């Protein structure tokens, strides 16, 4: 035992020396030992679940909607169609990248569906010439109709179906950076039928055919148009600048020669940015007017409409319809975070049976608040809540912007 005790004390005394001798004597040696230790623990990097998901989203999924070849088609088909989904095919490097072909077919949750083929040459002649041609079929089975004119009754809600084939072409010349001037020809084959919304009656069940011009029409139309467009928004999801478009169209009834008419649309949008562009006052004035020659009538389904998520937001889709219309909209937009804005809006407008009534008196009005997810190129998704109209409150969740 004594021997062991001595040994123990000897070790206690000697141990530090032993330990010291094992300690590195230099800083370089310290670091070397740490690296040798770490070398035993190295392992391949393993990304976590979030990282893998983000990588997939950014490197793969982000290309899904905009990808070449077959791609999903998501969004809406027209105001009130509801969310639509389908499949498309695109090829954007035709003719040495000068042309783009887009084909798609999609159906919505409200049984709207459409298919389209479009060939576009957007940047010919050193970006001075724009050409496109298209063919499409649109099947809108439950379009709202409340009667014509500003005094239509909300309780008269009915619906109709319209199925239209379109074949057309458009050419535009861009003499200056912000100016586009052009014209288009389009052949339209609208076919009307009974609405398919089970909750409302069909148009003929509520209205006399005399009150709804064109409801029994089987006419085809050749639409020829000319337009001028000025666009100096900065950026496209504008913080300043303006966008003006004037579009004159002549609709020629090729079948019955009863529904030939002219229509002029003027759409003026102006954007005033302040506080570093993080506050924007956006204003829009839209005016549509039309005329017919003696013995001709403008069919109701080509008349301008107001109501819905992009016009009078306090009213149902297509709540007002007449040969003439005026719409004024204003929004105060404020940035909350990058890519996320709030908006207070005010809409006012009316339709008119006579052009002389196209003024700012007796306008239908609404106001509301909205929130938008956006990029510099536009609004991706928005939620607008509208109040203050005779139609009550309305909430919209929309893929895309308004103006």
């Amino acid at each position, binding site marked *: 035992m004594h021997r062991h005790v001595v040994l123990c004390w000897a070790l206690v005394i000697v141990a530090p020396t032993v330990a010291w001798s094992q300690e590195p004597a230099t800083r370089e040696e310290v670091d070397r030992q740490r690296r040798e230790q770490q070398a035993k623990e190295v392992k391949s990097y393993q990304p976590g679940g979030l990282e893998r998901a983000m990588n997939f989203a950014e490197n793969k999924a982000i290309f899904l909607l905009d990808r070449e070849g077959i791609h999903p088609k998501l969004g809406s088909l027209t105001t009130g169609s509801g969310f639509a989904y389908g499949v498309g095919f695109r090829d954007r490097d035709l003719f040495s990248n000068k042309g783009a072909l887009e084909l798609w077919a999609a159906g919505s949750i409200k049984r709207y569906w459409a298919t389209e083929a479009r060939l576009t040459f957007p940047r010919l002649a050193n970006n001075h010439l724009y050409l496109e041609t298209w063919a499409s079929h649109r099947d809108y089975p439950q379009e709202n109709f409340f009667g014509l004119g500003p005094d239509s009754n909300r309780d008269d809600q009915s619906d109709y179906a319209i199925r239209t084939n379109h074949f057309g072409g458009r050419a535009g010349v861009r003499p200056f950076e912000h100016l586009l001037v052009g014209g288009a020809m389009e052949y339209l084959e609208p076919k009307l039928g009974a609405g398919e919304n089970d909750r409302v009656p069909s148009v003929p069940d509520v209205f006399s055919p005399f009150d709804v011009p064109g409801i029994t029409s089987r006419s085809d139309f050749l639409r020829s148009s000319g337009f001028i467009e000025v666009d100096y928004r900065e950026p496209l999801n504008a913080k300043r600048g303006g966008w003006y478009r004037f579009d004159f169209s002549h609709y020629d009834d090729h079948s019955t020669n009863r529904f030939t008419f002219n229509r002029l649309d003027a759409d003026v949008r102006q954007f005033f940015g302040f506080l570093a562009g*993080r506050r924007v006052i956006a204003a829009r004035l839209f005016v549509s007017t039309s005329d017919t020659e003696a013995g001709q009538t403008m069919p109701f389904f080509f008349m301008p409409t107001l109501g819905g998520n992009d016009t009078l937001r306090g009213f149902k889709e297509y709540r007002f319809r007449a040969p003439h219309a005026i719409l004024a909209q204003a929004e105060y937009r404020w940035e909350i975070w990058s890519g996320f804005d709030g908006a207070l809006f005010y809409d006012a407008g009316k339709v008119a049976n006579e052009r002389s009534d196209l003024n700012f008196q007796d306008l239908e009005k609404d106001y509301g608040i909205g929130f938008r997810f956006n990029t510099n190129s536009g609004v991706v998704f928005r939620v607008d809540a509208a109040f203050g109209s005779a139609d009550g409150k309305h909430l919209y969740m929309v893929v895309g912007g308004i103006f």
Partner: protein
Amino acid sequence: MVTRARCVSAGAARDLAGRMSRAAIIGLLAVATVSMPRSASPRFYPDDPLWVDDDRAMPVKAVPIEDTNGFDFVVNTFAQPGERRDVRALNVNTVDEVPDSSWFTNRIGRKAMSVAEIVRGPDRAESVDLAGWKVSGGKTTGVQPGFRMTDPQGQTYQIEIDPPSNPELASGAEIIGTAFYHAIGYHVVDVYLAEIDRESLVIADGATIRDPLNGRRRSMKKYDLDNVFNRAARLENGHYRVLVSRFAPGAPLGNFRYYGKRPDDPNDLVEHEHRRELRGARVFGAWLNHDDSRGVNSLDMLETTNGRTWIKHYMFDFGSILGSGTIFAQRHRSGNEYIFEQKPGWLSMVTLGLYVRPWMTIDYPDVPPSVGRLEADRFDPLTWKPEYPNPAFANMRPDDAFWAARIVSKFSDEAIRSIVEKARYSDRAATDFVTNTIIARRNKVVAAWINQVCPVADVALSADGSLTFTNAAVDAMAATPPERYSLNWFRFDNATDQRTPVGGAMTVSSGSARVPEGLTGDYIGVSVTATHPQQPGWTTPSTFFFRRASGGWSLVGVERGSAKTSES
């Protein structure tokens, strides 16, 4: 049986005693060994201070870690990665400096650099001539239009072009930023300005591009170049001004992160958020408005030296520094607020925008489009922010900031102007404005961060006991001299890390003093503070340790501000 049993018992007892003795010995040895580390690990080793961190020592087998923009944003904005701790940078040497390493090479901070050296930066050549070069591929990252070219020797370069709306903007920023960051000490790639004739370009056989429409790699075609030049600013002679960036040698390993360590690199000993040069990059970022200081704008390259592989860490992509947003003038928010910041956002939401963020009212000067959006009047270094939180920046302490601010102070007006002239702005007003703004921002940056600790520097103790030092803030004209300096001397036990005060507080009015009588030993030290009515930070002591050397005393340790270390 009894006898046998007794014998057995005695034997067992002896075995037990033996086992107990052995256990006791092992236990005592363990206790003795464990109790020794403090004394076994001296604060200063004989080779301190180290000026080279041999972080190429262990061979590396690594695979690329390529973060996406979205992941980097999400993680740094919402997850607070890395360790947030008020601890001294873990890669500094004992004199509180950054050793040369695969991350950093001391340049202007440690030695005088001529203006020509500073301007030349990393460039191997005076200029490049693109004659005979071929287009070898598309550009894979970033928003600036561009492509790759290969010179006749097979070296690959990235070619980038400015947008028509802001000619010279991003290329100028890249040239300027590269020269600054190189002189500071970071690893950067060679960048040059050149002119290119669109018509003379030849696409090499086998050139590929990642299709911008679907992300798939395919053969490069002529219209891919059209897509680039359609978005490019054209010179009056029909050519294009291009930025030519030399590819770094080695195999790309993606980017580094401002937090954690590479798990596949045995040389990567220090969590990146605790690296001095990454923490201090906040100061440089603020100075030059490098709001894009983030992991995805870095580059790790696997290099091979003498058959051993190691990772070299680069800073790159300075195209959106200063007033540049790369393809547009920098956003008003940039440098002032993170992309996503809770408080101002919620305030803005609930007040319907009546809450106005301060940066929204900055009135940026009317300057040429090549400058973008840059100013110095409203610039506040202390509140400057990158695009989203940066863990290393968040960990920056006064000592890190002092280190960086002192480097910033080394850039003279002449050097700054010469660097800006390297950008070859066609409008003289652009050169003047950028130069003057960088100078004004330099002055603000240095004043803000060099004064947070007692800025005593260049400390030397002669064999006869004369102490001399300078005041880095005064030298940088960031402060007037103090009323007085207070010195507290001590004897230092290197084995136990114990300080024994010697003499009382000594007060001097200038940068010289004498070691008090009776202060002897192998190690001595002095803790210095200064009194200045406008500089409260100067009361935060800076402490200097000296080791007896053959010719007198050598500076072996510096400690600024909090003495917290990784152990604390």
